């Protein structure tokens, strides 16, 4: 029982990390119809910049802020110089953002070197609590808490604020939003920055969780986030949350019980979704078709 609960919490923490990354991706896709394959690069830069400042200042909070800032700044540059020029053309979007992903991934190696970078949780998040034999690692609970708060905040933003309603309206009909007097490009930029900031946050949270950082996590987690977005349904934040937790928990159980196929679990899950429900768990049917 304890083992199962332990795995569950582990999987939940992983799921939350992926959710933070996937939420931005799904929003950006849903609203702007942009396939941002460079999303993982924002995650990567968030992780490196955050862990770097955390190491310099020994303040994890400052590190988190740096990660969010790094994600948002690179996100803004990406939006302006890489994505806007190829707006509306899916194939070129895929290609160009993939190119950006490669370049940004290598640039990390130029700035911080190609070697592994170690990361430890701060003192106040080290160690664990024990409840009747059940060991709860603090840092994992911290990730779950952060993820839950962000998810709740996102739902509040989308459902209860005019800005959020505008975003959801924009997902359905951009022209009409414009015709109602709203500058949709500003809304786009806001959503992009929000998604980029969440990716950055997710990046630094990963550092102390996995213990090491390397440049390839950008592509790895970027792909994972894409898988989650496809499983959850393009454009659906709640769908992404469910899918992320599903991927995290299933992955954790597979890693424990059938380690041989652990790596393939996500791919298999996506394969099943693509075959039986291409629009994803909570996606709209039209969203999948050409």
């Amino acid at each position: 029982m304890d083992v199962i609960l332990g795995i569950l919490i582990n999987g939940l923490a992983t799921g939350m990390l992926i959710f933070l990354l996937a939420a931005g991706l799904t929003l950006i896709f849903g609203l702007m119809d942009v396939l941002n394959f460079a999303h993982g690069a924002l995650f990567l830069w968030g992780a490196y910049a955050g862990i770097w400042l955390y190491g310099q200042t020994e303040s994890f909070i400052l590190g988190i802020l740096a990660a969010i800032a790094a994600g948002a700044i690179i996100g803004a540059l990406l939006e302006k110089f890489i994505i806007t020029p190829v707006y509306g053309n899916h194939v070129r979007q895929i290609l160009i953002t993939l190119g950006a992903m490669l370049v940004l991934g290598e640039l990390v190696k130029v700035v911080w070197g190609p070697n592994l970078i170690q990361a430890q949780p701060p003192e106040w998040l080290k160690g664990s609590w024990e409840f009747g034999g059940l060991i709860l690692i603090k840092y994992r609970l911290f990730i779950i808490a952060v993820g839950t708060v962000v998810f709740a905040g996102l739902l509040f933003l989308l459902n209860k604020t005019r800005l959020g309603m505008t975003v959801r309206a924009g997902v359905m009909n951009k022209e009409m939003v414009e015709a109602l007097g709203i500058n949709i490009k500003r809304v786009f930029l806001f959503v992009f920055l929000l998604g980029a900031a969440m990716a950055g946050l997710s990046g630094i949270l990963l550092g102390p969780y996995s213990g090491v950082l390397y440049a390839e996590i950008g592509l790895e987690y970027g792909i994972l986030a894409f898988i989650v977005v496809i499983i959850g349904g393009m454009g659906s934040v709640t769908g992404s949350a469910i899918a992320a937790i599903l991927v995290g928990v299933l992955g954790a159980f597979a890693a424990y019980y059938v380690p041989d196929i652990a790596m393939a679990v996500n791919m298999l899950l996506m394969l099943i979704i693509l075959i039986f429900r291409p629009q994803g768990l909570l996606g709209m049917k039209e969203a999948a078709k050409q």
Partner: protein
Amino acid sequence: MTLLKVDAIETYLGQYHILQGVSFEAKKGEVTVLLGRNGAGKTTTLRSVMGLAPISDGVITYNNKPIHKLPTYKISNKGIGFVPEDQGIFNDLTVEENMKVAMKKKDDVTMERLEWILKLFPDLKTFWHKKGGYLSGGQKQMLSIARSYINSNDLLLIDEPSKGLAPIIVEKVMRSIQEMKEKTTVILVEQNFMMASMIGDRFYIIDDGKTVHSGDMKELKEDEQLKKQYLGIA
């Protein structure tokens, strides 16, 4: 006084030359009706005024200022409301949320208008928390008109409000437009000549992307020849 003046505009959609010189004026306080066959370019004309189908030539002035180079949202913020052909309802948003997205202010004037609108369209009040996608065609039309009217707009562009609606609902919609006419100027695209002639003051006939005729609505009612030629009404 002329509120909106469209002067010899030309518009391309992709490679198709849709508008090849459309001109008309909308006078303050009047209902101007754009008539014409299917595919004549009426919808594109409205979309061009809104900046959704940018013009390649010609001039559009609003209150004597050119607006055709502005982005859509700025045109809208000048005080122009738009009810598109497909109503443009945000299906996943509730009626309330649809209205909220449109409401630029939350002041007393807007709230008063909202109250007035809900009295005009009691259906919207009934389905206030329902999603837009669940509304009937007529209710969607009402919501779309309400949305364009909630801000103190001086001009409403309404594209075929009678399309696909049952006659009894069409009448309701038309009556509401008539009531709004008191407070705002309206440009109406309409196929239903009965309705158009009921509330219209002036008319313009668009054919093959050009304005071919204009005049007083009363004159058109009597001119069987013109009706037959351009509108296919005997």
